[in-house]
């Protein structure tokens, strides 16, 4: 019998710290599988954010750089500009990318930096225990919107993929999810295409991955996947926003 599924080489052989059922783990594996399948682990450099995945430099086998909160696209710009033959990805959460790091992601995209951003949107701040995020849905309860997110107090959630796709430099932008098998497979396809866009030197690529936070949503992992499907997807429609037909 042949092995048909095992841990990708680009992921280190150790247990990750994420909460039980947190889909960060799935997304890490998908990125690592793509790196393996494209055979680029030796040339890839990942940039870790600040947030739950701040120390994912401990989990990947490629060279890694940990960036200040929100600054991963700028750090990634520096790494890529230093050695353009390397492949650079940033892995960021919604607080990192869409709150403090909004300027950095917008400008890395509009400069067409040839890096790939994996943007994990779980509509909440996980690491710091459940605060309102830029992508928190209206009426969603968090530790800093205890009565539910209200526009007059907390403003409106940001649709990042739609926003970034308006920028010329962003040549591939797709929003995917990992809430079931079909979508996980689809998410991997999008991540692979994003890396291929970078390998073809076409410009900036980003995959927004809807993700869960069982702990801070206050649900068990299975309920969380359900909640994502029923609540996040209607507001954050899945699909391609840029570069659907890009040949890579």
């Amino acid at each position: 019998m042949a092995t048909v599924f095992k841990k990708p080489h680009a992921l280190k052989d150790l247990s990750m710290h994420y909460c039980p059922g947190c889909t960060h783990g799935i997304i890490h594996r998908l990125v690592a599988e793509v790196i393996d399948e494209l055979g680029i682990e030796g040339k890839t450099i990942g940039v870790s954010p600040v947030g739950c995945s701040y120390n994912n430099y401990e989990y990947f086998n490629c060279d890694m750089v940990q960036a200040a909160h929100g600054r991963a696209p700028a750090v990634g710009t520096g790494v890529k500009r230093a050695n353009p033959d390397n492949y650079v990805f940033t892995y960021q959460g919604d607080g990192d990318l869409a709150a403090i790091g909004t300027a950095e992601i917008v400008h890395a995209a509009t400069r067409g930096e040839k890096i790939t951003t994996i943007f994990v949107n779980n509509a909440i701040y996980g690491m710091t225990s459940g605060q309102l995020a830029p992508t928190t849905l209206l009426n969603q309860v968090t530790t800093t919107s205890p009565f539910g997110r209200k526009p007059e107090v907390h403003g409106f959630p940001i649709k990042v993929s739609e926003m970034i796709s308006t920028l010329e430099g962003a040549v591939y932008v797709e929003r995917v999810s990992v809430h079931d098998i079909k979508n996980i497979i689809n998410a991997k396809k999008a991540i692979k295409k994003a890396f291929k866009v970078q390998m073809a030197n076409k410009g900036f690529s980003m995959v927004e991955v809807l993700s869960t936070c069982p702990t801070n949503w206050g649900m068990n992992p299975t309920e969380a996947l359900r909640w994502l499907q029923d609540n996040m997807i209607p507001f954050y429609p899945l699909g391609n926003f840029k570069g659907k037909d890009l040949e890579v």
Partner: protein
Amino acid sequence: MGQKLLMKGNEVIAEAAVRAGCRHYFGYPITPQTEIAHYMAKRMPEVGGVFVQAESEVAAINMVYGAASAGVRVMTSSSSPGISLKQEGISYSACAELPAVIVNIVRCGPGLGGILPAQCDYFQAVKGGGHGDYKMVVLAPSSVQELYEMTVEAFNIADKYRTLVMVMGDGILGQMMEAVEFKDKENIVAVDKSWAVTGTGMKRENNVITSIYIKPEVMEAHNNKLQAKYKLIEQNETKVEVYNCDNADVIVTAFGTVGRIVKNVIKTAEKEGIKVGLIRPITLWPFPVHAFEKYAQTPKAFLSVELNAGQMVEDVRLAVNGRRPVHFHGRTGGMIVTQQEILDKIKEIIK
């Protein structure tokens, strides 16, 4: 005999960086240093280098963080408010032990302040404007020639110790033109950068550049390592100019451009029978304490002259350690001290 040119300070800094092998510059416009970016925008493409105008000084320092992590010689430059924005990135870079050169062409503050020259960022530079126990080598040139020499030296120090080096001038230095003589070939110290993130090539364990160590024992060990490095830098890299101090009546301390003004005062005072010496720290950090060990008992008093409300004077007091009174005279807001003011203050002191 190298090439001799009449050049503007800001442009000399940029040319010096290129000559020092810097091929990556990330900048942002802010008076009075923006010509550095102008120059780099033209020059970098000529040498196959990278010039990026970042969206902010915060982004620029983080691009420096990325490029330095990848092992290349990299520089950014700004002026006071922009340097404030870079403080977080500076603290991160210090902790991650990243070699990089940061230029601050100081303008008057605080706040948006003004665009005229000042030295009011001394504390921020040497006491650390960012969080945590870190140090940054701070070089204070006083002429366009020194801007050139110290920018080249800054890259060597940065690489040698994996540290940040700030070249701190002021609006005068950045904007003025002076003759500068370039060497034919720069002394570029090559160092091992196998720690950099250049891709494992599947031939080595992965490199990680980080500034977080969540276990306290590990973080303390890392802090101790940094502090040991700073001790080494203090021993090897402290630079000072001691001028005319033997049996001086008053020893003036001043850095950068003000050091030159004081030299004129020394000549005038000499004619009036007053012997004035000058101790001019060239490295603001590490502060040249040893120079004060030698001369602490020599004068009646010390006088620190600065373009701020009194900053380096505190380090002078620490170095003199109570052995002599330490006076202060300064101007702020972009006003420049005059020779007459300094002379009057000296006379007042020795009365």
